């Protein structure tokens, strides 16, 4: 995009500079027009800068998202670049030693660490001061080693940590300390199994670096050694690993990840640890940041594409008006022998001055808009640790300005090309340009080529979504001159544009396979096509409208004048209507999407968990048991869900073997006590969903087919076979019995039968997740609340599935509403555009207005005519925008594979009515200033004006 803009500028700007420096005549013509009417020039600049501002804002928002996550990457992991997962504390020590022994120049820190999630309590039991934090990340490592870990001691977050810690001491970070309400010297209780261990807080550290990863830190040997050994902490509850710091700063260190990975693997192979799991924690987070930044920029860029398209139409309109206003002048210039090229170049020069000023101002305004969006985002987006802050890369300013400048300059050059082709005689008499029907062979050939191109494109590349959408439209529209030979052109346009409109609106449903994973830019293309086609059809119906207008508004002078102007200039009006409709289209689309998401919330919950209404997680140090839960009065059913990672073997195209871990849920027949999640696809051998689920829970490791249920996004279908690898290195084939839609809400991945767990997992220790159905008359949210209260010391974290779905959709809604707010700016473009165009119309029609006042037309009648004109444009824009927005959102949300199945379509009627009213009122407001100005035109002096 930026590159294209720079190329356009590289082609268009040098000639302008040449003229500016070396061609005084052209310079004079161009620059005088700028300075002649400063007010008008300011309007043109104001109109053009809006597009630049939106583009720049999109970049700035991307910068902010990326920058915020990147800054998180810089602090969250502190010096830690990689984490090597090992099986036990002993193995961690061995591995750490082996890595240290490498004495690699790429590694500047190695430290064995153990980890466990525990509940920590403080304050006296039974009093108000009692606080329990259910899940705290507790790390065990040597603070003396930790504080020198990596090259930069301040980055470790351990500068103020005690060098030596006793086994009855603990260090907390400031966040946990303040949650617990403790200071140095207080004691805290750690809950393990049935017992508690009391430790003294010896330091409170700022949450950064290692003190960020570890919310609490204890001395080596504490978890595995004497203190906790007496308690019921099983070995499996503790994870062990080695933290590795790469040489260099945040980025150069992360860049070494691949090299260091190889070194670590070879070192560990030497101590018989094969195939270790090495996480490139920092480098992954940085990658995420970059991805997120790009993603956000492209999302906002595409969404703002609608507003930018509206902005382009505005710029075209402004320059067409500018040229129209000067028809007589231009005609005179041509008559006295100034060449067409010179007129074009003067125009281009003038446009470049406006464009350059607008680009600079627009980029600045864009930063302001971006800052606003960022502030709003940080307020509405639930981003755990990431606080979204404003970041502005200088390159974004340059890119925004360049794109805005390129758009306006391209518009100017194309417009000037058209206007310079004027007929001198007609121009001198200030007559409208003749609309000559192009019935020549040229239009026929052009049409035929267009049809052929459309067909060829579709045949050759019809599987590319954008081509599949656009090629048939190209063919249909190109066929207009051909069909126009047989039937009246008007009819040809209506028929073919209508067909193209239908295609564009329905394409997601008509070609579900092609449109299965659409890019967001596809929606942009769809919106622009729909609006363009619809506006063309409306413009063609102009004669029909005029007749209607004459019937309705014949007696009313305001209505007659107000309608006569837009109807007389169908192209200009169409541009304005399209501008308005585009913006309203997008806002409508987003609004409907929002409504659909919130209407679909209950279905989302059902898809994720079937009739299971709540779930509860506990620490693996002291989990709830199924019996204990089932015995509760407020629980009707409980099912244990063993969630762990399983290793999947994949044969790549090069016949290489690749393995990765995927999340798995092991379930037994408890899970079938109520309806499990519905399946969207199911193998033919199963009569119903229940049968398929039964086959899953009964799959034994001994014989028969081992059935699993997969998630929709995995792309697997019933009958597919997946190979899993056991910890012993054996392979087990499982077969897909069915596919469910939306498990990600409560843990995605594969559903397997509990009988397979011992084969596929290292150990089958306690299960720490349960699905629940509340007892009759009990509300799932209330059940979750009481479980959280009862299980706080065991790290209970319960929630109603519906509440999870609601918070999930509200997150989406917050994001969409943020986009909507951003689009509101597009509406501003529409209003500003309409206002600017009407203000210019007042000037263009000044003489006429003077005459109207002279023959006795009152100023309120004149004012009324401008309001009618704006309302006429606004009304059509609103009707087309909302109509097409609803049509297209209905099509894409319910008929396409792009969105999850089972979305409940809902129209936000009140919201849409509000949008319509606001947009209409806005168009009236836009006409206020021009209307007042028009009403004030003094007849005598206006009539003196020579055209």
């Amino acid at each position, binding site marked *: 995009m930026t590159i294209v803009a720079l190329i356009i500028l590289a082609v268009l700007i040098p000639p302008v500079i040449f003229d500016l420096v070396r061609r005084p005549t052209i310079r004079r013509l161009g620059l005088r027009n700028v300075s002649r009417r400063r007010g008008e020039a300011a309007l043109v600049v104001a109109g053009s800068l809006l597009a630049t501002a939106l583009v720049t804002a999109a970049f700035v928002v991307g910068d902010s998202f990326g920058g915020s996550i990147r800054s998180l990457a810089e602090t969250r992991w502190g010096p830690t670049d990689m984490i090597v997962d090992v099986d036990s504390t002993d193995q961690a020590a061995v591995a750490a030693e082996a890595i240290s022994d490498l004495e690699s120049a790429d590694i500047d820190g190695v430290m064995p660490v153990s980890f466990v999630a525990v509940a920590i309590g403080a304050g006296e039991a039974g009093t108000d001061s009692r606080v329990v934090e259910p899940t705290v990340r507790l790390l065990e490592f040597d603070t003396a080693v930790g504080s020198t870990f990596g090259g930069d001691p301040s980055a470790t977050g351990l500068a103020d940590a005690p060098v030596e810690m006793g086994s009855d001491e603990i260090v907390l970070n400031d966040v946990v300390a303040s949650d617990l309400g403790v200071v140095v010297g207080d004691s805290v209780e750690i809950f393990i199994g049935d017992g508690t261990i009391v430790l003294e807080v010896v330091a409170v550290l700022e949450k950064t670096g290692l003190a960020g990863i570890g919310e609490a830190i204890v001395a080596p040997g504490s978890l595995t050694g004497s203190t906790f050994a007496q308690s019921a902490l099983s070995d499996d509850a503790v994870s062990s690993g080695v933290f590795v710091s790469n040489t260099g700063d945040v980025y150069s260190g992360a860049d070494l990840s691949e090299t260091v990975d190889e070194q670590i693997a070879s070192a560990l192979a030497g101590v018989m640890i094969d195939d270790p799991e090495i996480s490139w924690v920092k480098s992954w987070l940085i990658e995420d940041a970059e991805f997120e930044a790009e993603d956000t920029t492209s999302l906002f860029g595409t969404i703002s594409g609608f507003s930018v398209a509206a902005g382009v139409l505005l710029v075209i309109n402004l320059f067409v008006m500018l040229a129209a206003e000067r028809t007589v002048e231009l005609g005179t210039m041509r008559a006295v022998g100034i060449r067409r090229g010179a007129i074009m170049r003067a125009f281009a020069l003038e446009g470049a001055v406006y464009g350059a000023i607008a680009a600079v101002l627009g980029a600045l305004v864009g930063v302001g808009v971006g800052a606003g969006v960022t502030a709003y985002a940080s307020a509405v987006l639930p981003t755990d640790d990431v606080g979204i802050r404003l970041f502005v890369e200088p390159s974004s300013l340059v890119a925004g300005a360049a794109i805005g400048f390129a758009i306006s300059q391209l518009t100017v050059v194309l417009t000037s090309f058209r206007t310079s082709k004027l007929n001198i005689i007609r121009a001198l*008499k200030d*007559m*409208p340009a003749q609309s000559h029907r192009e019935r020549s062979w040229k239009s026929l050939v052009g049409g035929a080529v267009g049809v052929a191109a459309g067909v060829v494109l579709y045949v050759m590349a019809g599987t590319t979504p954008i081509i599949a959408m656009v090629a048939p439209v190209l063919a249909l529209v190109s066929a207009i001159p051909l069909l126009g030979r047989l039937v009246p052109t008007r009819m040809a346009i209506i028929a073919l544009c209508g067909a193209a409109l239908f295609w564009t609106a329905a394409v997601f449903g008509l070609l579900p396979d092609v449109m299965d994973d659409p890019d967001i830019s596809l929606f942009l293309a769809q919106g622009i096509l729909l609006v363009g086609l619809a506006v063309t059809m409306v413009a063609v119906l102009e004669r029909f409208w005029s007749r209607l207008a004459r019937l309705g508004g*014949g*007696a009313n*002078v305001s209505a*007659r*004048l107000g309608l*006569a*102007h837009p*109807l*007389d200039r169908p192209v200009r009006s169409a541009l304005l209507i399209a501008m308005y409709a585009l913006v309203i289209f997008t806002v409508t689309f987003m609004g409907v999407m929002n409504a659909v998401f919130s209407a679909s919330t209950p279905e989302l919950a059902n898809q994720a968990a079937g009739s299971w209404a709540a779930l509860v997680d506990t620490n693996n140090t002291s989990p709830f048991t199924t019996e204990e839960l089932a015995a509760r009065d407020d629980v009707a059913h409980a099912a244990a869900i063993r969630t762990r990672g399983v290793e999947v073997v994949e044969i790549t195209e090069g016949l290489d073997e690749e393995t990765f871990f995927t999340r798995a849920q092991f379930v037994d027949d408890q899970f079938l006590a109520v309806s499990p999640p519905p399946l969207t696809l199911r193998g033919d051998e199963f009569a119903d969903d229940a049968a398929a689920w039964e086959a899953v829970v009964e799959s034994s490791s001994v014989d028969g087919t081992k059935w699993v249920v997969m998630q929709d996004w995995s792309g697997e279908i019933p009958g597919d076979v997946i190979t899993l690898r056991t910890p012993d290195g054996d392979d087990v084939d499982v077969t897909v019995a069915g596919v469910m839609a939306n498990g990600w809400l409560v843990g995605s991945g594969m559903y397997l039968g509990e009988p397979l767990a011992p084969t596929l997992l290292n150990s089958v220790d306690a299960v720490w997740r349960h699905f629940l159905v509340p007892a009759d008359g009990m509300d799932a949210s209330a059940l979750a609340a009481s479980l959280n209260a009862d299980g706080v010391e065991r790290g209970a974290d319960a929630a109603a599935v519906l509440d999870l779905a609601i918070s999930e959709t509200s997150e989406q809604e917050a994001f969409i509403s943020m986009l909507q707010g951003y689009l509101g700016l597009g509406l501003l473009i529409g209003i500003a555009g309409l206002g600017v165009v009407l203000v210019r119309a007042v000037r263009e029609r000044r*003489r*006429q207005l*003077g*005459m*109207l*006042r*002279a*023959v*006795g*037309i*009152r*100023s309120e*009648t004149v004012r009324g005519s401008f309001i009618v004109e704006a309302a006429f444009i606004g009304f059509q824009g609103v009707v087309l925008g909302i109509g097409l927005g609803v049509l297209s959102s209905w099509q894409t949300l319910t008929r396409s594979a792009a969105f999850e199945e089972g979305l409940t379509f809902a129209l936000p009627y009140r919201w849409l009515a509000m949008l319509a009213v606001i947009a209409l009122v806005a168009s009236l407001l836009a006409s206020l200033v021009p209307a007042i100005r028009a009403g004030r035109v*003094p*007849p*005598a*002096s206006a*009539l*003196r004006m*020579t*055209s």
Partner: protein
Amino acid sequence: MSSDEINGTAPQANALVSARGVEKTYRTGDLVVPALRGVDLDISGGEFVVVMGPSGNGKSTLLNCLSGLDEIDGGTVLIDGNDIHEMSDRARTTHRAKRMGFVFQSFNLIPVLSAVENAELPMLAAGAKPKESRDRAMDLLSRVGLADRSGHRPAELSGGEQQRVAIARALVTDPAVVWADEPTGNLDSATAASVLELFHEVNRAGQTMVVVTHDREIGASADRLIEVRDGLIAADTRPSSVTAEASTEGPVR
């Protein structure tokens, strides 16, 4: 009664238009242009008054001020006995719609309306019914010889035809006075002659006309010829009248 009763400065209550001491000064920045410097003038019903004089001497200004298109800086203008400059803008506008017609040098038709729509505009503005306005406008278009062009837009008409539409528009409300500022300035002599003939025809039917022009021929054909020089009325004669002795020599004031 006749205009030879003009004497002194008392406004004539029975004159259609009666101006006393009308002053108009244009100010643009430091530049002060006294365009009218105290004009007295009475126009009776049915007169065909031609205003002539060198360029830049205040003819158009006089016409604008007498008709109430422009504000004045001093004096009074009575039309039908009412002081138009005392009226609110709204009342004056309505008064214009009902009682005055205008014809301009550059036709000034609304380009997006057809001939008949242009012609009926003042009637609609004055509050007449659409049907009545349309019939009346069609009548007038046929009177100016354009019955068959009523549906055409201004751009589709010749200059002379456009001016005739403008005349139809000026006459449509059956006004007390028709003000015309160089109505033939943009027309060739043959077309100009036909427009002039049209003026005389409506004047013969009783219509009061005030025409500003540079055209000697129009001047010669007038009932009454007023010469404006330097913001004052320099001569007021009756070239085609048998009662030529009634003319006054020299400035009135």
